[in-house]
């Protein structure tokens, strides 16, 4: 007997996803996607995964939603400046009715095949839960997910912190300083006093919450990712309500802060190698402290990375005056 709550949640999730994906109006699609993310966090709670629920609430619906919203805003502005009154109609794709039917049939077939494989999964429920439980005492933390992330499978996490740095280098390489948002946001000018008041209230609270999540991660759901995401949320709020921040020139501390997570993580790992241990093989008694050190640096880097990813381009260099012109030719 499946609880009504779960059935309702799953039906709502599937329906929202479908609506978000078929919406011709992209703004509608994005808002539906944000709502989808909120319900997804509830689903994680129902599946007894509070760590994921925390991350989803912060990243999945929160920051990703904000990213999509600001992208749509910038797209519309570009379209208007290019003289397109209405957004151009989406091109029809792949040969009309038969093509559409074949695509749909193919997707249904693939999904059915996957569903069949899931349905026929052996009942034994194998997994590594017991192995984690058995070695938890040696990991330096008492929360099992943190033990996996920062100790048993810390190498994955190390590479993944690298992915974050790649993302920022990539965004900076793709979007140059003459990117429209940087200048236009400054021109957008006055921020309503209500927003300033809200931000002044929220940002300190978010900083405290980020610190709390970082600290609690050793013993309970929380940790560097969730804390970094909340920190990133605070950064996005500040970017949105201090227009002059958006044209803040690139500074040394930005690069240092962005790289800090990978630097400390790799540094600790290699120091242990030099000390004759293996990569990220924490000495007994030191594990807890080293994990906290790494997590603190990673939290800082994630927060800064998410903020600067939201900026959507490399910060202006040197001269803070927005003199850059952006070209927006029609092809």
């Amino acid at each position, binding site marked *: 007997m499946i609880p009504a709550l779960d059935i309702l949640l799953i039906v709502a999730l599937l329906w929202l996803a479908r609506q978000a994906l078929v919406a011709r109006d992209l703004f509608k699609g994005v808002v539906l996607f944000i709502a989808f993310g909120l319900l997804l*966090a509830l689903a994680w709670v129902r599946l007894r995964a509070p760590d994921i629920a925390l991350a989803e*609430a*912060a990243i999945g619906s929160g*920051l990703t939603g904000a990213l999509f*919203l600001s992208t749509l805003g910038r797209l519309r502005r570009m379209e208007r400046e290019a003289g397109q009154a209405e957004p151009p109609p989406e091109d029809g794709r792949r040969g009309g009715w038969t093509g559409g039917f074949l695509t749909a049939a193919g997707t249904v077939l693939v999904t059915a095949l996957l569903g069949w494989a899931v349905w026929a999964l052996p009942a034994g429920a194998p997994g590594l839960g017991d192995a984690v439980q058995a070695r938890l005492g040696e990991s330096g933390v008492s929360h099992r997910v943190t033990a996996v992330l920062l100790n048993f499978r810390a190498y994955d996490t190390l590479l993944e912190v690298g992915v974050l740095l790649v993302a920022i280098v990539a965004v900076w390489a793709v979007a140059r300083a003459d990117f429209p948002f940087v200048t236009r946001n400054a021109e957008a000018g006055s921020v309503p006093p209500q927003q300033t008041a809200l931000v002044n209230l929220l940002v300190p609270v978010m900083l405290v919450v980020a610190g709390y999540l970082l600290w609690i991660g050793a013993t*309970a759901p929380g940790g560097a990712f969730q804390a970094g995401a909340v920190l990133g949320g605070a950064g996005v709020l500040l970017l949105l309500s201090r227009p002059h921040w958006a044209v803040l020139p690139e500074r040394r501390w930005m690069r240092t802060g962005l790289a800090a997570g990978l630097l400390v993580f790799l540094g600790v790992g290699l120091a242990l190698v030099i000390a004759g241990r293996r990569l990220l093989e924490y000495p007994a008694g030191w594990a807890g402290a080293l994990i906290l050190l790494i997590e603190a640096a990673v939290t800082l880097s994630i927060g800064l990375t998410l903020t600067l990813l939201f900026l959507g381009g490399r910060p202006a260099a040197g001269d803070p005056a927005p003199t850059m012109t952006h070209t927006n030719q029609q092809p």
Partner: protein
Amino acid sequence: MSGFALGAAVLLLLTLVAGMVRVVRGPTAADRMLAAQLFGTTGVAVLLLLVLAGGGSVLLDVALVFALLAAVVGVAFARRGIAAPQPGRGGGHERE
């Protein structure tokens, strides 16, 4: 107590369905966004009810993060509206 809390949670989820209709039908961008923000608030309420139903106090943290990040989305929406004004029609230019 837990049965009552779960029942109330189901009821709140049902109210979300009403909210979804507003998101889908619009007609203006602000309608959709407000409805989605309502989702966030209802989500917080559902989480608190699940705490009552024995879900553990960790859900309070989730509810806290929910509430904080919903504000980020709200501000992102508002700034988007300011940064992209359309003469005379305010934020409602997504009218279908």
